[in-house]
């Protein structure tokens, strides 16, 4: 869907004023205005998700690293926008692609502003996901380097496969708004980053050969909650905006349906994450419930257009359960330190959403031959994205580790990245009990 509409739009710009919208009942001038309003407003909302990510990450980590987290979020967007303009967009949607990688239209030579604007905020979302999993111990310079590559190369290439008319889209893989393209890609990069970095000091304590898992509490749950509400708000732009237009025949119905499935999945994600944590740990956990809402949102991102509200309820509920189990598994069994649960929310629930397209999707809308076939293609897409990112992001982090270094020293980590990396304190004047 995304791809088809985008191609039409790109063609419209390249060939205009040819009569692209001939079959369209809306007159072309009103149509382009409708599309532009829709995409710019939705793009703005997706941009605003940067604030949401920043607040969630700040809230779920310690006060002494808050400034560093802000910088990472600000800079992955800023550096990412520059790179996506220079090469990313070209690699993803460039007209001279070969199914594996796009080419052409670098520096947005085509002037397709409206689509670039909507796409750049997606690229930035993928980039920013990683920040949370690598929080509280990553060298700032290394993070800048990473940002260049994820927005400039890694994300655009797998994006090309799915949304740029590449080989996965040819196979019928469907990812309406990016469970795989954006969230899984971000989530798997986060996973590789967290593994290669290693855990924060004091997170996994070895004692008599046995590893004890320690909790490192987030310092500001109200900000984390604000972040989740902002993300949810922005997600209406993310999902509903992925119709990529408001003027094609049936657009109104599509936009509204997506808003509904998105709402229900997020709500159910929150509810079921709460109950799962309640059952497992005897209390309804605040940060897990917040993660649950995000899990529901990530889960519905791919299938939001092809499933019914009833299926959205199920997809959200499963995502809510999944995210809690996954957070605990990654922490307690795999001992991978992901302070905000980015891998579980974006990686794991991204895969779940991708598969849910096959499991619950309307086969007519998907143009699929059979449910089994569609599930297979979806699984293939999810696996390919995983492989692609695991290898490239893994290599990237390893190279950075060997050269510039990926991690601050232990002393810096204990004192806090704000002081050592940025020479500042985020909460000057507040008394903060240091031994946490």
């Amino acid at each position, binding site marked *: 869907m995304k791809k088809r509409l985008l191609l039409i739009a790109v063609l419209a710009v390249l060939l205009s004023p040819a009569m692209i919208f001939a079959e369209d009942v809306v007159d072309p001038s009103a149509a382009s205005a409708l599309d532009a309003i829709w995409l710019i407003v939705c793009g703005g909302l997706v941009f605003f998700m940067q604030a949401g990510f920043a607040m969630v990450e700040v809230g779920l980590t310690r006060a002494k690293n808050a400034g560093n987290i802000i910088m990472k979020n600000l800079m992955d967007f800023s550096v990412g926008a520059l790179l996506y303009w220079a090469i990313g967009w070209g690699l993803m949607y460039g007209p001279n692609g070969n199914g594996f990688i796009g080419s052409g239209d670098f520096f947005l030579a085509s002037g397709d502003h409206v689509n670039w604007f909507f796409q750049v905020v997606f690229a930035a979302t993928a980039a920013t996901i990683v920040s949370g999993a690598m929080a509280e111990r990553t060298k700032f310079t290394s993070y800048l380097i990473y940002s260049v590559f994820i927005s400039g190369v890694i994300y655009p290439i797998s994006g090309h496969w799915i949304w740029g008319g590449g080989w996965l889209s040819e196979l019928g893989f469907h990812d309406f708004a990016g469970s795989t393209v954006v969230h899984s890609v971000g989530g798997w990069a986060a996973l590789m980053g967290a593994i290669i970095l290693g855990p924060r000091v004091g997170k996994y304590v070895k004692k008599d050969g046995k590893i004890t*898992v*320690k*909790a490192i*509490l*987030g310092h500001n749950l109200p900000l984390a909650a604000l972040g989740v509400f902002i993300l949810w708000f922005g997600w209406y732009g993310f999902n509903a905006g992925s119709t990529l237009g408001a003027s094609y025949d049936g657009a109104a119905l599509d936009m509204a349906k997506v808003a509904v499935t998105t709402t229900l999945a997020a709500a159910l994600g929150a509810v079921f994450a709460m109950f799962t*944590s309640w059952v*497992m*740990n*005897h*209390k309804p*956990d605040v*940060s*897990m419930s917040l993660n649950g809402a995000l899990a529901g949102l990530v889960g519905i991102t791919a299938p939001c257009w092809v499933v019914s509200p009833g299926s959205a309820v199920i997809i959200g509920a499963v995502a809510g359960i999944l995210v*809690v189990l996954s*957070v*605990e598994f990654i*922490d*307690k069994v795999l001992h991978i330190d992901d302070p905000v*649960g980015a891998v579980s929310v974006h990686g794991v629930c991204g895969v779940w959403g991708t598969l849910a397209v096959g499991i619950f999707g309307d086969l007519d809308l998907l143009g699929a031959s059979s449910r089994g076939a569609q599930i297979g293609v979806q699984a293939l897409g999810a696996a390919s994205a995983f492989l692609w990112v695991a290898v490239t992001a893994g290599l990237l982090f390893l190279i950075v580790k060997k050269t510039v270094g990926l991690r601050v020293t232990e002393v810096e980590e204990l004192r806090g990245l704000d002081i050592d990396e940025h020479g500042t304190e985020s909460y000057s004047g507040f*008394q903060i*009990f240091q031994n946490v």
Partner: protein
Amino acid sequence: MKLIIAYIQPDRLNSVKQELYKEEVYKISVTNAMGCGQQMGYTETYRGVEVEVNLLKKVRIEIAVNSSFVDKTIEAIIRGARSGEIGDGKIFVLPIEECIRIRSGEKGEGAIG
């Protein structure tokens, strides 16, 4: 002159203050503290991981008094702070050798009140 240091439950501060006022002890200093006594703390969970909280929040009171006031100050604190539960707190009495009022430079017993 003695320095009376007391650790009490935070929610008892108001009643301790009231009892002190009744005894005409008006001057006190209060700080936040974390304490570990017979009260053993409790367990929270955060994101599925147990957190042992064995440093509990306490309020620390410092009162400098003349020796003749020591007993009634202690009694007032006990009246205000006692609930009969573990965690009620503790009082320490230390000697003070000198006391000076910064505003006037006044020294000794006269400067305390």
